[in-house]
């Protein structure tokens, strides 16, 4: 094995965090006072021993990463996926030296940049021009380098006219555009990126994805953390699937995405309101839960584009005599209102629901949604007169994933596939000549 063509080598890497323990429920006042009096001294002692981890008593320990080993070749674009809390960001933070590992070794060969956020270090009181320099310097660019790329950065961001305006007067979209423009002109040999594409408006996102394509093809080594399966599938040949701090799968992106899909490691796919006092609703109806289910009944946030997906609403009717119509609102990751659905069917149409416990599910057919995130708002309304009993925006979210097996509506085309929906239509082609 020639070590020379490796950019990143990770061996047995682990990171332990200490998290605050919950306090015991019953404590005597005397004990509390005594502990309170002792605490500053105990803390001061632990501080001097160099073991302090903040003023809270921190005893519980969790491994955010454990036994992580992998290698990345020069020029390889590696995707890192996994549900929230799987350790993706921690891994990038360790590799980019922001935090120190608890065990293991990592070797990085080459100039690195980490993009855990765009616009780090930017200050609202400073002008766009000043912030380009400041942000560039924070991201590790040299002054001469920034000066050389300045015009290009400004052009890419499209904020020329506001260059000498303090950034606090920018719209949030403009701020993100400027920040991303600086980031996209970083020229490291190894780049760590964490989910930065989830910002900015649709048009700018497209521009950024294009830029990412360019970076990936430019022979640079990239470690790319994302929830956007379509972006990962498009940009990375190889992907690591993390789960609970360990590597669950390391290999071809398609397989990694499939494994992610199969294990249904979703978190945003279920929302519950166990406390009726705090649940959305009024004295007529209250929401208990919203879930994203697939045909076999599992709750998951990773949906195969070819398979149907059911959005389930669980609610409690408290007063009789009301016609209650559950409805669901679908938005894509760019915030576009994709569609709305109302409860259908003869059983309940125009009929009041008696008090009790209900579950209503709307099934979206397979080969209908587009790839990417779908954010679902859940509401229950009455018609004539129109009353909205509750509308829970962003109740659940899920990812529609095209594993590029060739039998989705995408066919054999592997590039970007625009559109809010991606229906599988019946085509007829007759040979007429």
């Amino acid at each position, binding site marked *: 094995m020639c070590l020379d063509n490796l950019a990143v080598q990770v061996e047995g890497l682990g990171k332990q965090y200490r998290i605050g323990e919950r306090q015991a429920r019953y404590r005597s006042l005397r004990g509390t006072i005594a502990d309170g009096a002792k605490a500053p001294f105990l803390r001061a002692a632990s501080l001097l021993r160099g073991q302090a981890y903040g003023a809270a008593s921190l005893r519980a320990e969790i491994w955010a990463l454990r036994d992580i080993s992998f290698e990345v070749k020069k020029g390889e674009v590696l995707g890192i996926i996994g549900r929230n809390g799987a350790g993706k960001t921690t891994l990038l933070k360790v590799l980019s030296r*922001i935090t120190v590992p608890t*065990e293991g070794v990592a070797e990085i060969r080459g100039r690195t940049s980490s993009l855990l956020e765009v616009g780090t270090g930017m200050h609202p009181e400073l002008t766009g021009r000043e912030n380009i320099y400041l942000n560039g310097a924070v991201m*590790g660019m040299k002054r001469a380098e920034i000066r050389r790329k300045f015009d290009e950065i400004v052009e890419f961001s499209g904020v020329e006219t506001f260059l000498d305006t303090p950034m606090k007067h920018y719209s949030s979209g403009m701020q993100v555009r400027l920040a991303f423009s600086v980031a996209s002109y970083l020229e490291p040999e190894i780049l760590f990126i964490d989910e930065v594409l989830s910002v900015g408006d649709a048009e700018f996102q497209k521009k950024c994805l294009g830029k990412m394509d360019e970076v990936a093809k430019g022979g640079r080594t990239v470690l790319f953390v994302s929830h956007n399966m379509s972006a990962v599938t498009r940009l990375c040949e190889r992907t690591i699937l993390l789960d609970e701090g360990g590597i669950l799968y390391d290999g071809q992106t398609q397989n990694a995405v499939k494994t992610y899909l199969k294990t249904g490691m979703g978190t945003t796919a279920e929302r519950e309101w166990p406390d009726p006092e705090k649940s959305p609703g009024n004295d007529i109806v209250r929401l208990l839960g919203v879930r994203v289910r697939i045909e076999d009944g599992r709750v998951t946030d990773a949906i195969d584009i070819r398979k149907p997906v059911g959005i389930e609403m669980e609610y409690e009717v408290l007063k009789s005599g009301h016609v209650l119509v559950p409805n669901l609102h679908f938005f894509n990751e760019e915030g576009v209102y994709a569609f709305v659905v109302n409860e259908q069917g003869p059983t309940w149409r125009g009929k009041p629901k008696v008090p009790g416990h209900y579950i209503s599910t709307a099934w979206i057919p397979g080969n209908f949604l587009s790839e990417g995130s779908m954010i679902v708002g859940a509401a229950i309304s009455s018609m004539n007169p129109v009353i909205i009993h509750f509308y829970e925006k962003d109740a659940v979210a899920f990812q529609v994933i095209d594993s590029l097996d060739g039998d989705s509506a995408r066919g054999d085309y592997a590039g970007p596939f625009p559109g809010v929906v991606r229906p599988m239509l019946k085509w007829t082609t007759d040979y007429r000549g």
Partner: protein
Amino acid sequence: MFRVKGKENRERKENATSRVTSIEDLGVQGKADGVIKTIRILPSRGWVPIKLKDIWEYRELLYFLTWRDIKVRYKQTVLGATWAILQPFLTMVIFSIFFGKLAGLPSDGIPYPIFSYSGMVIWLFFANGVTLSSSSMVSEANTIKKVYFPRMVIPISAILSGGVDFILAFIVLLGMMVFYGIMPTVAIVWLPLLFLLAFVTSLGVSLWLSAMNVMFRDVRYVVPFLVQAWLFATPIAYSSSLLKGKWKTIYGINPMAGVVDGFRWAILGVETKPGPMIAVSSVVAVALLISGAYFFRRMERSFADVV
């Protein structure tokens, strides 16, 4: 072959964890197509070297952070940078009324206003540095959590940014010297060194406080009190000539006593020539800086996790 399994793997790990350095720069390896920098990331425990080279490498960032602090400091204030002058000037007026006129404190044979103002100018550089710098790690929390750079750059830049305020207040001091007809002596060549001593003291204290502030926000409440008490323990309102012989040397344990005394001597040429006292002050200041730097480096590794 890098990948090792089982027992061998464990040994390797133990080997790695027993290392002291956190991030060891293996240096630059020559390569045909240029140079490739290799970074080894290892767990870190205990005391670690200060690595001045790292800070030097990030000197441009230091420059930009200082520049930002200067630019931002007086934004949205009506009086702007005038505050840099008003702060010491108004304190001088109050001191002159209460300590100079009413209490009749001695001022080494020069008019009391310029006596107290000159002390105030260098004191404020120190005190504002400590105040800004001790909270700097917390106010830069977001940056610390998102980007790597030697963390020490932050408290250093916070103190350096006070340099502009110092220069402005110093210009007023020169004006006052003209007004009172005081000519500087050759001793003025020591001025940069005394300024450096004030910087060293400020940074030493700030490194201790800013690192502690990350863990214990109590520091925020301690600092104003500390600065105020320190002000009265330093010969600004009064002259160190109140102390004689041995006691004056011991007084030098407060490094700012040496700085203020020396500063006054260098610029105004008062008779109180710094003797053994400033030597004591210098030793204490350097000790503060070195211990502070080691303490800071020791705490540094957990900053991003805790702040």
